[in-house]
């Protein structure tokens, strides 16, 4: 009964997200002016920034699920963690691609090692390490427990990176255009509206994907359990 309700709610959310994203896409292409001092390419921020946001959010959720798993030993939290990591990995790749395409147009090179680019590379490395670690662990319980520990350890280094990385790289790249596009002065109210709508839309999109992935994993687990039972 409860399951049914949550499914209905999820279905409603899916339709809502669909129309919301249509609004964001139209808004980003037709309703907003170009950001001051930039060409039309600046519209990438309506996609690129929300993608990076989701990539970080997904990792936060994985670390929180990790803590919950260690406290309760309930496998469902591990399912949340791995699902979130998989989706987060996808979004961080998308964020990296959109970012570097834009960098090629605006800065003249696909890659410049500016602080944000460095952060996303570190995030990608953490995600990749997380997958590698899981595949090298044997039992389901080990995968859950040890990868939870790793995600927590990786997560607590993030504040240090935020502080440390811009410091060393600032000396190499004195002018950092990413920051200036995000200051209020360049963003008109209309841009702001679409920008935050997009962040909201992407977050919903992420949540919907996450729920799908979690349900899929649960079904897989139930089938496995059932198969084992039938054997005996």
């Amino acid at each position, binding site marked *: 009964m409860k399951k049914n309700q949550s499914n209905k709610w999820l279905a409603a959310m899916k339709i809502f997200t669909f129309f919301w994203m249509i609004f964001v896409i139209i808004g980003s292409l037709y309703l907003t002016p170009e950001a001051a001092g930039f060409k039309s390419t600046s519209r990438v921020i309506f996609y690129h920034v929300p993608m990076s946001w989701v990539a970080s959010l997904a990792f936060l959720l994985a670390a929180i699920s990790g803590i919950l798993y260690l406290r309760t*030993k309930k*496998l469902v939290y591990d399912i949340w963690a791995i699902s979130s990591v998989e989706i987060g990995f996808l979004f961080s790749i998308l964020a990296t691609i959109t970012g570097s395409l834009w960098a090629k147009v605006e800065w003249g090179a696909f890659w410049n090692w500016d602080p944000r680019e460095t952060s996303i590379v570190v995030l990608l490395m953490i995600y990749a390490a997380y997958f590698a670690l899981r595949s090298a662990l044997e*039992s*389901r*319980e080990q995968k859950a427990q040890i990868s939870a520990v790793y995600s927590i350890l990786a997560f607590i280094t993030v504040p240090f990176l935020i502080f440390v990385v811009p410091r060393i790289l600032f000396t190499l790249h004195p002018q950092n255009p990413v920051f200036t596009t995000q200051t209020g002065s360049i963003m008109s109210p209309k841009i702001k509206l679409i920008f935050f709508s997009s962040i909201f839309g992407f977050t919903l999109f992420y949540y919907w994907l996450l729920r799908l992935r979690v349900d899929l994993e649960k079904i897989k*687990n139930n089938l*496995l*359990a059932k198969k*084992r039972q039938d054997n005996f």
Partner: protein
Amino acid sequence: MWKIIGTGITQAFNQRTIFRKLSFEIKSGESLVLVGPNGSGKTTLIRIVCNLLHPIEGKVEFYYGNETKMAGQLYSSIGMVGPYLQLYNNLTAFENYAFFRKIRGLNVDHGHFKILMKKFGLAGREFDELRTYSSGMLQRMKYVCALLHSPPILILDEPVSNLDESGERIIYDVMEEQKRSNILIFATNNPEEIKFGDKKIRLAV
């Protein structure tokens, strides 16, 4: 007087349930034997009893008198021998003994160590590295380290593996001695050893 109570122990490996809702109770002067075919989870249960593994459900509690003892307070009370518990191969017998004595915070002197070495037929090999020992001698050495402190709780997994006849006899004496006033828990399928168990847990696949 020691007492160990296990309640509702359930364990799974790769989500496959190994055993469900096992309970037992054992106190000083008793022995408990775990029997069951290969793969039935004897070793898993042994590991849960001595805190090497946390079960997914249930718990094992230790009491000394009426006092609960936490896992962290048992290092000097449990002695254990099992095929997956190896000693340090590149240290000598004496160095192994010295390390275990210190790390467990035991009050035993070298004399006691010598007596044990003699009892298990290893006298004269104290200063040889363990990698020069045969597998039977290693098994004997494991007993020396496990019995250093005359533990109130002795846990054995396959007590006589790798041992010759004289070794078996020594171990049977040890087991007989242990269950007289202390706790003995062991896992085996050997009929000759099963008779040492007052209580029995039969595990099925």
